[in-house]
C-alpha cells in the first residue's frame, strides 16, 4: 500500500502544474459549496431567530403569515388594530410572564416607526436568546424620545440628540408628516441583523400624541369616536389602540392553550400565532432561492471533478509506458488500477482540504464585513454534520470518477502486458 502511494506521490510531483491546477479548481468549487451552505444555514438560523423567546404574537384577526410579516418584519400593513382593553385583559392572564405592546403604521424616511414601551427593550430577544443592546444613549424615557435601529442611524446619519419627524403611512413618500411633533433621538441600538435595525422606536404615548393632533387626517384605525366610546380610567401613557403584542409565557407548554384562548376571545376577533412555527413556514417559501443556490454550487463541484477526469484521461496515454514498466517489475493490473484511482482520490482529498482551508481563510477575512453589512454572523465553528456529509459525497465522487480512467488503464495493462507502446 505505502509503496503504491509513494509512487503516486512522486508521480504528482512530476506533474506539479496540472495536478496543482486540478486541486485549485476542486478547492475553489468546494469553497463555493461550503460557503453557500454556510451562508444558507446561517441565513436560515438568523431568519428563524428573527424573534426568539416570544411565545405568541397577538393581532387583529388575519392570516398567520400576514400577522408575522406586519408585526415582525414590518412588511405589510396590519389590517386592523386591537383595543388596549383587549391587550390589558389578555396580558393579565396567569400564564403570561411578560408582554410587549406594539403600534405600527407610521414611518420615518421610509423606516417603520414602532410604538412600544420599556418592555420591548427588556423582553425582546433575537438570535440565540440575545437581548437588545444600546450602542449609544439609552432606551427612551420620555414621550418625545426615540430609539433608532443601527441601520436607520447609520443611513440617515442621526445621532443621540438629533430630532426626527414621523410621517403617517408606510410609503417612502408621505404627504402627511407630523411636523408639529418631532422626536428626540435618545438612544441607538447595536446591530442585530434583524428588522430591528430598520426600525425607529418611540413611545406609545408619542404615537398617540401625534395622531391626536392630526386626527382629521388620520383615517386608519385611529378613530376619535372610538376613543371617546371607551369608558373607564385612562392613563396618559396608555393609548386607545395598538397593532399587536408579543407574549412571553411562564411555561412554554401553555402556548397552545393560550393561543386557543386568544382565538376565542370574546371582546373582538383576534389571532395568535406561534412565531417560531410561522417563521419556519415563511422560510419554506424564502428558502427555495438558497436551495437553488446550493444546487448550483453542487454542480460547480461536479464541474471541478470533471476537470480532474479530463486531466487524468489526457495524461493516460503517456502513462501507458510507465504502467508497462511497473508491470514488468511485478505490479499487478490491480496495482495499476489503484494507482490511478488513488490519484483521483488523493487529488480530491487535497482539493477538499484546500477548499476548507480557503473557506476559513475567507471567513476570517470577511466575517466583520458580512456581520456589519448583512447582519449575518458566520461563526468560526467546525464543519457541521451536514457539511461533513457534503464533503464525504465529494470525496466518494472523486474516487468514483477515478474508476473511469482506472478501469481504462487496467484494460490497457492487461492488453499491453509489458509491451512498451510508443
Amino acid at each position, binding site marked *: 500500500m505505502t*509503496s503504491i502511494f509513494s509512487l503516486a506521490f512522486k*508521480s504528482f510531483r512530476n*506533474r506539479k502544474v496540472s495536478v496543482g491546477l486540478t486541486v485549485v479548481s476542486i478547492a475553489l468549487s468546494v469553497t463555493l459549496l461550503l460557503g453557500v451552505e454556510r451562508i444558507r444555514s446561517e441565513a436560515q438560523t438568523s431568519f428563524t431567530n428573527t424573534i426568539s423567546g416570544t411565545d405568541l404574537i397577538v393581532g387583529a384577526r388575519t392570516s398567520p403569515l400576514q400577522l408575522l410579516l406586519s408585526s415582525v418584519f414590518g412588511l405589510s400593513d396590519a389590517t386592523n388594530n386591537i383595543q388596549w382593553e383587549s391587550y390589558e385583559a389578555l396580558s393579565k392572564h396567569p400564564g403570561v410572564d411578560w408582554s410587549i405592546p406594539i403600534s405600527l403604521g407610521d414611518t420615518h424616511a421610509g423606516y417603520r416607526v414602532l410604538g412600544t414601551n420599556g418592555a420591548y427593550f427588556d423582553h425582546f430577544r433575537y438570535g440565540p436568546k440575545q437581548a437588545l443592546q444600546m450602542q449609544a444613549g439609552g432606551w427612551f424615557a420620555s414621550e418625545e424620545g426615540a430609539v433608532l435601529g443601527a441601520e436607520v442611524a447609520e443611513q440617515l446619519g442621526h445621532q443621540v440628540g438629533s430630532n426626527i419627524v414621523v410621517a403617517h403611512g408606510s410609503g417612502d413618500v408621505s404627504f402627511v408628516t407630523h411636523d408639529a411633533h418631532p422626536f428626540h433621538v435618545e438612544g441607538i441600538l447595536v446591530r442585530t441583523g434583524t428588522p430591528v435595525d430598520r426600525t425607529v422606536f418611540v413611545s406609545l404615548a408619542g404615537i398617540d400624541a401625534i395622531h391626536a393632533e392630526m386626527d382629521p387626517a388620520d383615517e386608519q384605525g385611529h378613530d376619535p369616536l372610538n376613543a371617546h366610546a371607551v369608558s373607564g380610567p385612562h392613563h396618559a401613557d396608555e393609548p386607545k389602540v395598538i397593532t399587536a403584542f408579543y407574549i412571553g409565557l411562564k411555561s412554554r407548554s401553555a402556548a397552545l392553550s393560550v393561543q386557543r384562548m386568544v382565538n376565542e376571545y370574546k371582546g373582538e376577533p383576534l389571532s395568535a400565532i406561534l412565531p417560531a412555527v410561522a417563521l419556519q413556514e415563511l422560510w419554506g417559501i424564502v428558502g427555495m432561492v438558497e436551495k437553488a443556490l446550493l444546487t448550483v454550487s453542487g454542480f460547480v463541484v461536479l464541474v471541478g471533478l470533471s476537470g480532474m477526469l479530463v486531466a487524468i484521461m489526457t495524461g493516460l496515454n503517456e502513462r501507458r509506458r510507465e504502467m*508497462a514498466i511497473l*508491470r514488468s*517489475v*511485478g505490479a499487478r493490473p490491480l496495482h495499476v488500477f489503484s494507482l490511478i484511482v488513488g490519484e483521483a482520490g488523493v487529488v480530491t482529498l487535497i482539493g477538499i482540504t484546500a477548499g476548507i482551508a480557503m473557506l476559513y481563510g475567507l471567513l476570517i477575512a470577511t466575517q466583520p464585513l458580512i456581520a456589519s453589512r448583512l447582519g449575518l454572523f458566520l461563526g468560526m465553528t467546525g464543519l457541521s454534520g451536514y457539511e461533513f456529509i457534503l464533503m464525504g459525497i465529494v470525496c466518494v465522487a472523486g474516487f468514483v470518477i477515478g474508476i473511469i480512467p482506472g478501469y481504462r488503464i487496467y484494460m490497457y495493462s492487461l492488453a499491453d*502486458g*509489458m509491451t512498451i507502446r510508443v
Partner: protein
Amino acid sequence: MVACFQTAAPGKALRPAETRLDEQVRAVDISGLRFSWSVSSVPVLDIDSLQVDKGRRVFIEGPSGSGKSTLLALLAGIVKPRYGRITVLGQALDEMHGPARDRFRADHMGIIFQMFNLVPYLTVVENVTLPCRFSHRRRVKAMRSAGSVEAEARRLLTHLNLDHTDLLSRPVTELSVGQQQRVAAARALMGAPEIIIADEPTSSLDAAHRKDFIELLFEECRREDTTLVFVSHDTSLAPMFNRTLRLTQINRADSAAAGKRRPS
C-alpha cells in the same frame, strides 16, 4: 485493497516451494506450448520443447513478427499459454493465477526493454530500487548484499559505470540512451533475481556501447549465476552467448499467421 499488496508482506515471498529451486531444476522448461491471442485465431507460437539451464546466457534470435514478444510475455507470466506447459525455476506458470504470476515475476525476474525503461518521475536510484517495492524477497536480498536497498542500487550502478554523483541526482529523462539502458540493467539485477529477460536492450545503442553493455551485463549475471534470456534480431551479437536459438526454427506456428496475430 490490502490483499493486492501482499507481495510486500514478510514471509510470503519465501515459501517452502522455493527451496526446491536447486541446481537440477532448469531455469526454463517449455513443452507442447501453444499460444494464440484469442480462442478462434491461429496460434502465433507453437513450441514443442525448449529448455534453458540455470546460469546460462541464451540468445534468442528472430525477425520481427516471429513471436519474440509473445514468448517473452509467456516467460514473464504476463499471459498464459492455451496449451502445454511452461515451467520457470521449477514452477509451472501455466498453473498459476494472474496475481501469483505477477508475484513470481516480481520475485524472480528482471526485465530490460528496448527503450523507455525508466519511470520519468523517479530518480536514478528510485528507478533501480523499484523491484524492491513489489518484492519482499528481492528487498531482503538487496539488504543482505549491501546493508540497504539504496546501497545495493549504488553498488550496481557503480559496477555499470554510473557512479558520478551528478549523474545520480539528475532527472532520468536527461540521461543518454546508453546510460538509461544501464540504469535499466541495474534495476533488472536489483535483488539478484534468478532470470533476466532482455528484449532488444541494445538496439538503441551504437556498436561500441552495445558490446560494453552486454559485457557489463554478463559480468553481473556471472556473479550471481543469473540466467539471461536475451532476445534480438541482431545476429552479430550471437557469438557472445553460450547458446543461440533461432525462433523461426523452434516455432512451428506459421510465421505468416504470426504476422497477422493482431487483426486490425
